[in-house]
Structure formats: structure tokens, C-alpha cells
């Protein structure tokens, strides 16, 4: 009895181990453009945030280049993330099991995944990262435009610019911390990084961490049903 209930073109590929498509090439390219801009923004932003980190401006060819480039990279990040948002927002809507998952954060951190509820394409932690990123990027682009003196100096008062620069710094700190959580989780939960590199995960990974999602894919209930998870083609 081999894969009798899998239709042709299913994202679940039999084998040993079973592999499951998680991200399309377009989604991966979108992700890595966004990731690269976030890293460049963090480096260039930190360079102007603390004098001890000013040496990082050398990576961009000096402080003036940082001043000129940072806002443009911000524009790339904004549109990059907008693409990710449109792709993934439905799968990140909060579900009942997410509350249970959060309540058992101790089990999450201890890797007792067997004590956790079955979750869809994303768990509560991933959803929180997603929404934090969404809100913070909007705050950063909005305040960033206020600080982009080269083109937008005349649109705001100096008092408004002072508030904008403080919010921009605070939001940047929070987003860097969120990014650390995101990257750490991807490293700690082994088998996650191939999802964004090759586009696939193993069946066991999907079983352990996103069983509800795997069941939906196997059951063929693809496309906007169940948890709303949109399986990769």
C-alpha cells in the first residue's frame, strides 16, 4: 500500500524519509531578499546608534554612505516584507490551539513537543514573530520617512523628528531581538533551515512540529481550508 491517498502533484513526497514541500522558490527568494535587507539595516543602523559600533560604517564605505543607503535598504525591506505578509498572513491568524501552545511554553523550551497541541503551518511562537515583524516594520518605515532628511525634511517639525528618532531606535531594538528569536528557533529546531533553503522539510519534522499541517496536506485538503495554511505547491 504505497501512498494511495496522495494525489499527483501533492506536496507530500513518499520516500525515506518522506519529504514535504514547505516554501516555493518565489517565497524563498522573497524571504532571503527581506532577510538580507534586515541584516544590512541592523548593521548600518547600529553603526549610527552607538559610537562603539561606528566602525561598522566601513562595511558600507563610510558614514556618509550609511546615511545615504540605510533608507533605501529600508524601502527594499518594506516591499520585501509586504510580499511575505501577503503570502503568509492567513496562515498566521491566531487559532485556539495557539493559546494552549503558549501556555505550555515550558514544554516548548524543553523540546517536549509530545506535550504540545497539534499545530498548523505555524506555531504560536512563529505567529508572534510574524506579527511583531509586521507591526515593527510599519513603525520603522513610517518613522524612517520622517528621518529621511534628504527628501522629506520639510514635511515634519523638529519636535516630530525627535519623537520619530526615539521610536525608530526603540522599534529597531525590539525588531533585532525578535530577529534573534527567529534565527535561534530556526537553528535550534533542527531540520527547519532546509525549509527556507531547499524548500522542503522531512515528514518527521512536519509530524513533530506541525502535525495538523501535515495531516491537511496528506488528506489533500489543500488551499485555504482547515487552518487556512496555504501549502506550498
Amino acid at each position: 500500500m504505497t501512498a494511495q491517498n496522495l494525489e499527483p502533484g501533492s506536496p507530500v513526497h513518499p520516500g525515506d524519509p518522506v519529504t514535504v514541500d514547505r516554501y516555493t522558490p518565489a517565497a524563498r527568494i522573497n524571504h532571503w531578499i527581506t532577510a538580507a535587507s534586515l541584516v544590512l539595516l541592523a548593521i548600518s543602523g547600529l553603526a549610527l546608534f552607538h559610537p562603539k559600533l561606528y566602525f561598522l560604517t566601513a562595511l558600507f564605505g563610510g558614514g556618509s554612505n550609511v546615511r545615504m543607503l540605510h533608507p533605501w535598504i529600508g524601502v527594499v525591506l518594506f516591499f520585501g516584507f509586504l510580499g511575505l505578509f501577503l503570502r503568509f498572513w492567513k496562515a498566521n491568524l491566531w487559532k485556539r490551539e495557539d493559546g494552549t501552545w503558549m501556555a505550555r511554553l515550558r514544554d516548548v523550551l524543553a523540546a517536549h513537543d509530545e506535550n504540545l497541541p497539534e499545530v498548523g503551518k505555524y506555531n504560536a511562537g512563529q505567529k508572534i514573530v510574524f506579527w511583531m515583524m509586521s507591526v515593527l516594520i510599519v513603525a520603522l518605515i513610517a518613522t524612517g520617512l520622517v528621518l529621511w532628511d534628504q527628501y522629506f525634511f520639510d514635511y515634519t517639525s523638529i519636535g516630530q523628528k525627535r519623537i520619530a528618532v526615539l521610536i525608530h531606535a526603540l522599534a529597531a531594538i525590539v525588531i533585532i531581538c525578535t530577529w534573534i528569536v527567529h534565527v535561534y528557533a530556526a537553528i535550534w529546531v533542527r531540520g527547519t533551515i532546509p525549509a527556507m533553503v531547499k524548500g522542503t522539510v522531512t515528514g518527521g519534522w512536519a509530524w513533530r512540529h506541525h502535525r495538523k499541517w501535515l495531516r491537511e496536506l496528506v488528506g489533500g485538503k489543500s488551499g485555504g481550508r482547515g487552518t487556512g495554511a496555504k501549502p506550498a505547491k
Partner: protein
Amino acid sequence: MTIMPNPPTQNVTQVMPESDLLRRSASTITPPAARQTEVAKLIDTSKCIGCKACQVACLEWNDMREDVGVNHGVYDNPIDLTPASFTVMRFSEWINPETDNLEWLIRKDGCMHCEDPGCLKACPAPGAIVQYTNGIVDFVHENCIGCGYCIKGCPFNIPRISKVDHKAYKCTLCSDRVAVGQGPACAKACPTHAIVFGTKEEMKAHAEKRIEDLRSRGFANAGLYDPPGVGGTHVMYVLHHADKPEIYAGLPDNPRISPVVEMWKGVTKYAGLTAIAAFAAVGFLHHLVNGPNRVSREEEEKAKDLTEGRSS
């Protein structure tokens, strides 16, 4: 009054070497043990006739040119400070409610050379803004990156960013002239000696006499503008109405570095980096203690069973 000698005919020693710094932006420095005598420029608004000789002298000495401007219907020309015009005479018409007289208040606007400079505090580029021990706050353009943080730090709205080279400009208090024993170009050019330059003590003493004179002439509230909120300034005004500085084209009553800027450059900077380091450290320790979260062989088998329809 005071130090306005003619240029020397022999070589002179620089009195403001680059090492003689009290503060340097985005840098930790040890100021020299002995501070030079603090200097100051005193602008007596009661003696100013609005001739703009100071503006001309400033442009000339600093080798700056303004484009032909637009008449805004007032005497202010240009209408605001620019990257080229480090000083601008601001004209205000004020009706004194006590006398019902129209008073024409003229204030030469420009950098106040704060003892606690907000621009320098906000500046992220090492050495782009320096404060000499004599009190002069100067922009070092080769280190300036044009970010505009100085504009946010300044309580007087003085620095302007050039659209040409994207660097910040403001009055230097003619640091290059002061370094060789000269007074600022504006003071040199002022025909009524409304602008005078000397040591801060001399200028305060000179101001006292002017204030005494003004009070004897009916300006009971005449006084010196040397705002303590920024630690005093190295450009001071004698005002006939020192109780109402805002009538002089919005001269702030109690200027200080904005608390928002203080928060941004103070607690946010330290707490922010600490938070980032803490998140990274917690992640590192968590991995060290718990090890990786791996998928087991049985889980791969269960996934296989599920896909092959042997379980649900």
C-alpha cells in the same frame, strides 16, 4: 571694546590646537587638565541697527555665496539660516503694551555655542562636532556624514544640511580667526559695536554696564541672555526685555536639550544594546543546556505511516 586688534604682521602661535578639546562627538576623550579662558560673543540687541554688515562679513570670511533670493515682504534676508548663511538678522515688530510704542527688535540669529551642546550629544560620527576648551563648538566637515542628528539635538534650530555636499553647517564663532587672536568677522564688521568679543568674564562685565545703562533709560527688564538650561552659552545677548526672550523672533525662554533626545542618546542606547546582548546570550545558553531539538526516527516512521495511509 575688547579684543579686536588688527591682524598681526608676524607669525602667531595657534591658541586653539586640535588637541585642545573639551568634548568630541561620539568619542571618549580626556580633556586637558587646564581649560583655556572661555571666550564669548556678546550681541547687544539694543545697539543693533539691522545693517546686516555681520551677515556680509560672515559670508565673505567663510567664502560662502547665497543664491539671489526672494523678497518675503520683511527685512529678513535670507528668510532663514541656510548652509551658507551662518547668521541671519531676525526683525520683529513688537508693540510694548506698557508704552504702546512700536519697538523694532532685531536679533542676530546663529549658533549660541552652548556649554552643553545638544548637537554634539546627538552626533553619531566620531569627531564631526568638537568643543574646544575655550567653549567654541565647531563642525569638522570631513567627519560629518550629513545624518541631521545635530538638527534634532539643537535647542535653537541652528544647523543646516547642505543640499550640495550633504554636510551640516553653522557658525564656527570664527574658530579659525580666534585661533590666531582675532575676533569673529561679524564682530569686526559691526559698525555700532553691537557685537563684541572677548573672554566670557569680560563680556559679562561689559553686559552689566550695558544693562545698567538700559535700565536707567526705562528698560527695567533689561538683562543678559546666558541660558543656564544649556550650561550657559558662548554667544550671549543683551536684551531690553530679558523677561520675554520669545518676542525676539522666538528666542527660547529656557532652552535645554530635549528630554526626548536625552532619552534617545541616554537610556535607550545602553538598555537597547543590553537587551540585544541578553537575547543572544539566552539563546546561546539555551542551546548549551538543552541541546538541539531533533526529529526522532520514530517520528519519521510515523510520518511515513501517515502518508502511506497506515494511520491517521
